[in-house]
């Protein structure tokens, strides 16, 4: 149960292909937050994330006839998003919207239930992620945050499974080090 609709992805896809454009709203509502999380973590700010997400849904709509597994629309759209994030990230670079001045806030923020401190932690994490190479950040997020299998990651990224395993391992090691540097500051 997704809270959006009982209709399956395939039902929505078939309705859209039959000319019911409004049915596409069901797919957007179902997947926008899940895909939005990846875009936010990957690109580092809401404006770029929403741009990538909007391009993804519009492209997915226009090429919906090429979605060979309509019941897996979400996974198919996720693959489009991964590519859009790569392109957008390369075009714009990550915007410097990180306003936190005190990186030691990590210590305080990590254990805090205070929403302000939790926000500070996210900013620190955002900064650490921004220092990872894009292909390492992408692999780390897909594996540890989106919890995809290596097979799913390979299908989305076009990279081989051994290469993805290496990127995940390196991304994890580098992020662990970056966070411990901040922790020690």
């Amino acid at each position: 149960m997704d809270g959006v609709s009982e209709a399956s992805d395939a039902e929505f896809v078939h309705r859209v292909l039959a000319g019911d454009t409004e049915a596409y709203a069901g797919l957007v509502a179902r997947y926008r937050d899940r895909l939005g999380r990846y875009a936010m973590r990957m690109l580092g700010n809401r404006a770029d994330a929403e741009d990538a997400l909007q391009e993804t849904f519009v492209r997915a709509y226009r090429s919906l006839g090429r979605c060979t597994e309509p019941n897996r629309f979400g996974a198919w759209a996720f693959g489009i998003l991964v590519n859009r994030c790569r392109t957008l990230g390369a075009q714009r670079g990550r915007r410097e919207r990180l306003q936190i001045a005190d990186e030691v806030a990590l210590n305080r923020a990590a254990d805090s239930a205070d929403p302000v401190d939790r926000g500070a932690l996210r900013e620190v994490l955002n900064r650490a992620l921004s220092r990872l190479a894009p292909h390492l950040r992408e692999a780390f997020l897909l594996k540890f945050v989106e919890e995809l299998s290596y097979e799913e990651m390979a299908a989305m990224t076009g990279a081989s499974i051994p290469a993805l395993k290496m990127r995940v391992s390196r991304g994890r090691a580098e992020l662990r080090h970056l966070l411990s540097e901040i922790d020690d500051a």
Partner: protein
Amino acid sequence: MRDPDQTLDRAIQTLREPVEIGEAFDRRVMAEVAGGSAPRRPGPIGRAGRWLIQPHVVRVSPLVALAAAAALVVALLRPWERGVEPGAAATQATARSVASAAVPTRFMLVAPGASKVTLVGDFNDWSVDSTPLVNGVSGGLWTVTVPLPPGRYRYAFLVDGRTWRPDPGAPPALDDDFGRPNSVLTIGGS
């Protein structure tokens, strides 16, 4: 100082927190979708391609099924391939098992100031913890011996959990991602 693994785990939990994009976004997407061209339905070639990759129920007569089964039996038995004795087949199997036997392979790195060195590579799924090197008595020489079946492997050393170092005694992996410093090792198989 905190445990870096605990810090990383907390970071992952925070990154997994849901993100709310909001319904205003839906409206923007739907406005753009409604204002553009309709989705392209697959053409005859696309439909043919889709038909090929989708499962179908194929009905055949018992006679056709019998003929297909006979052809399959002939193909599997391959009577045109004569001269392979049962003993020879066993010898080939033994040779294959010898060829695939693991070869003890020693890795070493001189890192006098390091407090921890691990080996990461294809063979351990790039695990940063599973293959630690041992610091020698003289200090600074880190070694580990790993049994590896024949094959080509990419690997590197991870020093103190943060510095990725190629093996200075091995050629670099030229086909590596983005020019990252890995080394390559080939264990002969026959």
